């Protein structure tokens, strides 16, 4: 082992982090090289001196001073909790917006007539006379050039019809428990009818 290599290993040798082969090579080198041995003695003496420096004791009143100051300061905000709270208003606003949209959505399908309040849905007992607005591809009323009053009736929301004869219930009350939706109705499998709507 060359002198330069030996000196590279001084630190590892001091920390006892050399391999056995390195340690043996180093110690063999020291027996033959006075200069490296002398260098290592200075090196180790330096670190011994560092290690033997007297410990600086804390000031006797340090604890009291720290506590006195600590009483006057407030803790920094919890970073984890802070991050969690930031999205709450946004989520709440989004949820409210969705609720509002869902609530008013049925009224957007109604062509308001003068003197008619959109908030007062009218139940029509003859749904067969009216072609529903969202009946799909086929719109016979338009194809045959029906009158304006009849056309106006075609855009009345399907949700305004009285489907009480078609279905057994309008609203199915639900409860939320532990994040799972549970229906209070025993089953909806027995419901008969082509169409059902929920009216608010």
């Amino acid at each position, binding site marked *: 082992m060359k002198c330069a290599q030996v000196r590279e290993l001084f630190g590892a040798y001091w920390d006892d982090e050399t391999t056995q082969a390195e340690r043996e090579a180093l110690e063999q080198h020291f027996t033959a090289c006075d200069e490296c041995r002398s260098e290592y003695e200075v090196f180790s*003496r330096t670190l011994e001196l*560092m290690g033997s420096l007297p410990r600086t*004791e*804390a000031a006797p009143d340090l604890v009291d001073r720290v*506590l006195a*100051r600590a009483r006057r*300061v407030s803790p920094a905000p919890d970073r984890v909790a802070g991050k969690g709270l930031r999205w709450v208003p946004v989520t709440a606003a989004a949820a409210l917006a969705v609720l509002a949209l869902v609530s008013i959505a049925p009224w957007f399908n109604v062509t308001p007539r003068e003197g008619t309040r959109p908030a007062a849905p009218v139940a029509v007992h003859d749904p067969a006379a009216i072609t529903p607005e969202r009946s799909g591809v086929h719109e016979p009323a338009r194809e045959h050039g029906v009158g304006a009053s009849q056309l106006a009736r075609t855009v009345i929301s399907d949700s305004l019809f009285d489907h009480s004869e078609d279905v057994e219930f309008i609203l199915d009350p639900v409860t939320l428990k532990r994040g799972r939706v549970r229906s209070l109705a025993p089953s909806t499998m027995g419901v008969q009818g082509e169409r059902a709507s929920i009216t608010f």
Partner: protein
Amino acid sequence: MGRVAEDEERAFPELVRRYQGRVTNLVSRVLNDRECADDLAQEVFIRVFVHRRNYRRGSKFSTWLFTIAANLAKNEIRRRVRRRNWFSLDALQEVLKDSAIQLADPTEGRESAMEREQLQKAVGHAIATVPEKYRLALVLRDIEGLAYEEIAQVLNIPGGTVRSRINRARSMLKRKIQPLLKREGQP
């Protein structure tokens, strides 16, 4: 530390009492300034108190504590450098010269208490002249006895960098101390 984070009243004073010595010694050796070490140690514990809820449970408290202490010590060194009020190399040479004269006194066969004190003072000053980034690693390793891995966490640098910094710091310190030891009669 978990009890401190939960605002248990008696936990924080206990924590300060337990770690005050290590923190004071660390900053004192890094800055070579006893007076400032007290103030800085106080600041370290205040930071611990203020940020107690950000302490990650399961991580080693002393590592977190030393990280705060090392950062504050670094800030202080930089502040002093900016103010050009830091310990100069000339001052170190003066101290070394004084120490060497006393240590070389042939009438003393053994190292007297005064000599030892002078030597320690000189070593303390020599440490303070090692550049900051090497000095912190050196003090954490050779005075506070931290493992290389823990120093890497405290200084937030890779383990290999820690080793190279400590090696360089030791070599620098050895060069500074060597003249003193030769006069002392050491090899």
